[in-house]
């Protein structure tokens, strides 16, 4: 059975346990971005049995007919998943996916370097922190932050709102130290910058490495994201794939996994076994109330080109 996952996104000893228990050999590969994974599956050169796309990518793959339907009867352990996270817009009936991990987009900051309250996106435009701000080198996330600052939706299709977001990103550029993706958390750990836009899972890792760091997300609006587990069309071992997804959702395994990778789990039984100080922290396990203004990315279709043009303008500015 072939599993295709993000780098560092599973406790690999779980793969071995699965092999021993079911007698199914697991071949495990990793990718760095949704887009890398999409291109590889789309080109058809490889046949994976289990993949882990994010919400908007799941929608795109679902719309393009690239996914097999899940048979939930073969995944009895799916009953442990918090109903709060089922039936989301990206897959309304959970026909194609089950949530794997979830989180928010927020601000990781160094408490020694930042003395203002971090409660809104505006702090990323504060000249006091010039050349100490790390933004994400990812068009949807960075334009999303600008849209949120302006009070617009992160899924806007309105060209005027996008232009306005582009303008404030250009204004912000002199304050930005760098646009990064994976290096960002390491830069924060080594104290190279004061503020960084990160995903909550990366923040958990960085705080573990450097206790001076803290994470929060503005309650005025953020991106709520899900990484899900799905089976791509063309999978050769659909039965084994279901067994594997069920295995991932077995309470003891789900707990071991989330304990290892440190992201927020949608699995209730696993969450109950985690230390209270983690699961009670509203920045990492926000309640529905914290997420009133949070939005999930939707697939933009052709408007994505407009995002790209704005982002290129910002980068070339």
């Amino acid at each position, binding site marked *: 059975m072939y599993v295709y996952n993000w780098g560092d996104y599973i406790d690999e000893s779980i793969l071995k346990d699965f092999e021993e228990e079911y007698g199914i050999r697991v071949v495990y590969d990793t990718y760095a971005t949704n887009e890398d994974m999409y291109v590889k599956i789309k080109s058809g050169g490889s046949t994976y049995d289990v993949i882990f796309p994010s919400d908007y990518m799941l929608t795109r793959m679902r719309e393009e007919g690239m996914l097999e339907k899940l048979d939930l009867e073969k995944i009895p352990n799916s009953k442990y998943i918090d109903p709060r996270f089922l039936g989301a817009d990206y897959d309304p009936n959970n026909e194609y996916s089950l949530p794997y991990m979830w989180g928010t987009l927020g601000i990781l900051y160094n408490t020694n370097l930042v003395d203002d309250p971090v409660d809104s996106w505006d702090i990323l435009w504060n000249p006091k922190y010039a050349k100490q701000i790390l933004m994400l080198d990812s068009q949807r996330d960075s334009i999303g932050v600008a849209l949120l600052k302006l009070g617009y939706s992160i899924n806007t299709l309105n060209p005027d709102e996008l232009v306005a977001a582009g303008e404030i990103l250009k204004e912000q550029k002199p304050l930005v130290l760098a646009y990064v993706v994976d290096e960002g958390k390491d830069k924060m750990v080594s*104290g190279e910058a004061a503020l960084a836009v990160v995903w909550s899972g990366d923040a958990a890792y960085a705080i573990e490495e450097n206790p001076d760091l803290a994470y929060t997300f503005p309650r005025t609006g953020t991106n709520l994201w899900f990484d899900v587990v799905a089976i791509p069309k063309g999978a050769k071992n659909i039965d084994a794939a279901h067994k594997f997804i069920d295995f991932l959702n077995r309470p003891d395994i789900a707990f071991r996994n989330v304990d290892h990778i440190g992201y927020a789990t949608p699995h209730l039984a696993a969450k109950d076994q985690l230390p209270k100080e983690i699961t009670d922290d509203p920045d990492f396990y926000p309640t529905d109330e914290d997420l009133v203004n949070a939005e999930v990315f939707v697939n933009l279709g052709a408007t994505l080109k407009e995002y790209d043009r704005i982002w290129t303008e910002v980068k070339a500015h």
Partner: protein
Amino acid sequence: MKKATFLPYLIWMIMFIVIPLILVLFYAFTVSTPEGYKLSLDNFKRFFEPVYLKVILRSLGLALVSTLICLVLGYPVAMIMAGNTFSRRDVLMLLFVVPMWMNFLLRTYAWLAILERNGILNIALSWLKLPSVNILYTNAAVVLGMVYNFLPFMVLPIYSVLRKIDKGVIEAAHDLGANPVGVFTKVILPLSVPGIVSGVTMVFMPALTTFIISRLLGGGQFTLIGNLIEQQFLVVGDWGFGSAISVIMIVFILLSMGIMSFFEDADKEKTLW
């Protein structure tokens, strides 16, 4: 016999060079409409918007500066290595080649640790009681990364040409009364032009198309043409525009090769290429 041995290469080239090239041209010159693909120049028109012109000018500028620095730094080294009196040639050669055995990405990452605010360079400077410098995430860091990574491609071709110059010619120049400057400008330099041409080509092209150096050392603040193409294919999924930029790149490279081969012909010498 000759034809038969060539056949596998021909098949290889058709499969991996000609067909992909046709695909690139196809995507570049068409737009997809609900009725199917239509011949169009829209993808190219889009490229001439000011924002994309800015990107290509910046790419050309950085690539030219890097190539020039490589030439100025690399030529003397190649000369020293080629000199008859230099006995440590093998050691020096090894020093140039060994870093290339390491992964290119890893070497570029290493510069991050050297240049960052609390990095090795600034620690060393503060020991010497000198003011610290912040060059990471600037144009200078990108040029440094390119020069560091591509310098061997300049030195080695120049070196191999200099080595082959008949020492008798140089002695004759001396005997006929030329001073060292004259020997260099009138004999050595013209004879080494093919090496310079290969070196410049081998540095300029990767420098023009790199996207990882500008992303890591430039902090993603300077979109270069390589980043632009990558973005079209992986993020936006606009294969038409991505292909059009690629075609424009091919034109640029053909042009620069044309200019280079002009020098080469003038010299009637064979280069490495």
